[in-house]
């Protein structure tokens, strides 16, 4: 598997990287963990003229809670998320998703931000961020802008990110007490893309649902936010009827395609089953269990 020729750049600062991206336009591509980009190059599905490697830039690998916001840097890797005690204690949906990303070798190198920017409809992190209502900070030579996760994805491998921009930070509202989450993923084997996955991020408030975030993976042209299902739960008591109704709405929101991973009917059903199971698990965790 031999890629087509390209020029490699290793900038020392974000500014330098942004200069390069500005210069190359469509021919430039950011290299972070490389776990999607390198295979594309080797298969010659992509052949950008210039790779801008940001691994040589200091201080991009971070996670911190500050001013009511969880902030994640562009080089924060899946493996670090898997091992993060902060995520394990308060951000269950992320802690659940991290060890289910691809396989251990890919998790050692791949980054959350890279996965989100790549925007594979079968990618996991976009779904998680949709459920958590995250903001994405996009920076270019011209300046910085903030885009909501729900406005970021626009189709398969297609986002609001311009070729001259870097996804410089992910911002998530800090977890409140009584928050629980889950990420259920159906894959054919470890390392496979999801057949279906469902992210649930649940904030309980005085025995009722304060807010519920539900994201769907691999059942549409992009990661989906099941907004009707979310709305149906807001302010509701989380009983079986409410869970069933939300699960049915999530299944309706899914827009899967039949392929060698299963039929439309099958995938919709898994969305329903996983939404039910995910809500129950998230609820347990919000109440301090599981």
């Amino acid at each position: 598997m031999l890629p087509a020729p390209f020029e490699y750049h290793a900038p020392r600062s974000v500014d330098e990287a942004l200069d390069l991206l500005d210069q190359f336009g469509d021919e430039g591509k950011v290299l972070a963990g490389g776990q999607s980009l390198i295979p594309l190059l080797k298969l010659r599905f992509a052949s950008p003229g210039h790779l801008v490697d940001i691994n040589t830039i200091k201080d991009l690998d971070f996670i911190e809670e500050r001013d009511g916001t969880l902030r994640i840097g562009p080089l924060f890797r899946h493996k670090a998320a898997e091992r993060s005690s902060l995520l394990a204690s308060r951000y269950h949906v992320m802690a659940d998703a991290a060890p289910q990303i691809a396989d251990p070798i890919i998790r050692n190198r791949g980054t959350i931000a890279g996965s989100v920017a790549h925007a594979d409809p079968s990618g996991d992190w976009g779904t998680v961020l949709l459920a958590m209502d995250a903001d994405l900070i996009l920076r270019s030579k011209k300046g910085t802008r903030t885009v909501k996760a729900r406005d970021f994805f626009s189709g398969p491998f297609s986002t609001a990110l311009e070729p001259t921009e870097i996804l410089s930070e992910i911002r998530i509202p800090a977890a409140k007490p009584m928050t629980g989450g889950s990420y259920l993923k159906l894959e054919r084997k470890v390392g496979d893309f999801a057949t279906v996955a469902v992210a649930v991020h649940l904030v309980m408030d005085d025995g009722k649902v304060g807010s519920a975030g539900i994201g769907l993976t691999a059942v549409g042209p992009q990661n989906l936010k099941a907004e009707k299902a979310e709305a149906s739960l807001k302010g509701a008591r989380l009983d079986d009827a409410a869970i069933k109704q939300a699960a049915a709405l999530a299944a309706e929101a899914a827009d899967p395609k039949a392929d060698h991973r299963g039929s439309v009917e099958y995938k919709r059903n898994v969305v329903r089953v996983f939404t039910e199971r995910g809500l129950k698990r998230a609820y347990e965790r919000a109440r301090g269990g599981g």
Partner: protein
Amino acid sequence: MAVETPLKGNIGDSIKRKEDDRFIRGKGNYLDDVVLPGMLHMAINRSPFAHAKIKSINTDAAQAVPGVVAVVTGELLAQHKLAWMPTLSGDTQAVLATDKVRFQGQEVACVIATDPYVARDAAGLIEVDYEVLKAVVTPQQALKSGAPLIRDEKEGQTNNHIYHWEAGDKAKTDEAFAKADKVVKLDTFYPRCHPSPLETCGIVADVNPATGHATLWMTSQAPHAHRTLFAIVAGLPEQNIRIISPDIGGGFGNKVPIYPGYVVATAASLLIGKPVKWVEDRSENLISTGFARDYYMSGELALRNDGRMLGLRVKMLSDNGAFYADAQPTKFRAGLFHIVTGSYDLPAAHVVTDGAYTNKAPGGVAYRCSFRVTEASYLIERLVESAALEMNMDPTEIRLKNFIQPEQFPYMSATGFEYDSGNYPRAMQLALDKLGYKELRKEQAEKRKKGELMGIGVASFTEVVGAGPGKHYDIAGLRMFDSAELRVHPTGKAILKLGVKSQGQGHETTFAQIVTEELGIPAADIEVQEGDTDNTPYGLGTYASRSTPVGGAATAMVSRKLRDKAKKIAAHLLEASEADIEFDHGKFFVRGSPSKSKTIQDVAFAAYTNLPDGLEAGLEGVTYYDPPNMTFPFGTYLVVVDIDRGTGQVKVRRMVAVDDCGVRINPMVVEGQIHGGLTEGFGIAFMELITFDEEGNCLGSNFTDYLLPTSWETPKFEMGETVTPSPHHPIGAKGVGESATVGSPAAFVNAVIDAVGHLGIRNIDMPVTSDKVWAALNEKGAAE
């Protein structure tokens, strides 16, 4: 405290593998490690279409790339009569397409360049003008009247039918069915999968223009046979061809055929006068090299009301791809598929097989399988599961009732195999005890009341491995014997050279151990060499689990030959008559006085320094062993699964594997072989699949789509053994490399069917993916 003495390496000693030191330290020498001065690199331009006429090929742009030395097309090869080559099944195969392409990924043109990247870039610049034709993607389509003719270049070929072959006795089988109380039928498909060794195929061809000598480093499971085929195909004098098969990173049958890339690289080296390297990438390996299986099978079992089997009828249609290039003994058009009566005393059987051309890659190889035994074993074991369900019998009970009994061996099967030895009830009982079968059946009944799905799968397979005898089995006319040459040096160390070729099986250890057992030289003192045709005796190679049954037997026999000579020398040293000399574990002594002895090392030294009159110097020999029969390993595999009714996911909870491969030379190596085979069987049962769309596009061309199991999802294996020696093998061994791949897929699938059989589900074709399981449950109204 007892001091542990290091194991010498006798039969039964689990010594560590001698070869692992270099593999673990990254000091192996694989094909891609071979680098020669001035070496050029080759890349292949392949057909994007499954079926298309080639109108023209323009190589100008490729030729113009700096660093490109030559572009080879089929037209150029045709000038040297090399555009087509014979296959192992007596058909022909295009080396580079001239008239039309017949499968997606077929070799069309090759670029030879100074750099592998340049070669790849330029291969993409070759312009081929195609006229796309309708593709034929299933054998059923292929045999319909009016189907596009794939092999229109073959004289006399008017349709896509390849072969018709039968085994057994039709009249007797019809009679058995007429007497039956019940007939159970199962249609099942063993889908196309791929051996996908971690190392792909490749060659470094170095033809010396001055001498005409061709040194070919090749990923070959059968270097000697390949040398002869090269001599015949390319017309090169055989003494000028040296094939070196270096360390091989897995074969599983994939490295038995000769591929077009080998031929083009050799021709290019001959024409250019420089070494040429070609190493395929992963996708090339998956889309164009020897696939496996692709058998549509239909079985019918005639039974008495008490569950006794009376007869078996089997029909099979194989999808052989665009060229009939199966690797198998010449006489047998569907390999040894007629072993399909399995472990059962079936008085009558009749097997009818047909093959068809399709627009898919050729080369049905036996992926870790002795010539289609895997398909046969799968069919009979699945059919017996169906019969148990239909007769409302426990799947172990119906098997026990019909097993060939220990006292019936040697047993002549209804399709003509003479089973050498076996004790099937004993292996099954051990497996049931290890699993705790009865308790699990109780648990299953409890779970079923609660609507939970749990299943226990049973498979009791019998394999047939170790071809020859040469009078029945040959590859392209070459009889399937094998060889061993043993040289004991003056200091008592030895070198053993074999005609077989390890691809990871551990030959350097196990074959040394046979010598250790027979001569008493420690395994650590024995160097084992294979793979270089100039330096090893002629043999047919390693596949079909034949190395231990044939090459291992040759090793034992050559050791005994040397021992006989050593006895003469020992008699001379001990000043006794040869008739009075006894041998025990490396020591020669006069009968009755074991204290006065000479070691094999003493004798080896004397063989070069102090010989009796009239005896030739040296302690060396060679043996060519033609086995009197195949060997028949067997075993019982049990699998426990739990099924999620909401997603259809199958979780393998337990797997017990009891194998009987006769005498185990190195039990650790045997267990490693079984582990590997079970993992591959698990992969085939649940995920591995090469499939195609309606246009013949291959949908399994990389490891994202062609799924291989890893340690993460593979279940833990609980193993057991019984030992029923082969009566005709010099050390009673049977060969084990493939048993687990042969036996386990049916055990996995039977476990799933056992979980859902009460709902009326009888079959889910492999790979048993969660969506298929859910769909089957949903159809019966049993899904969540």
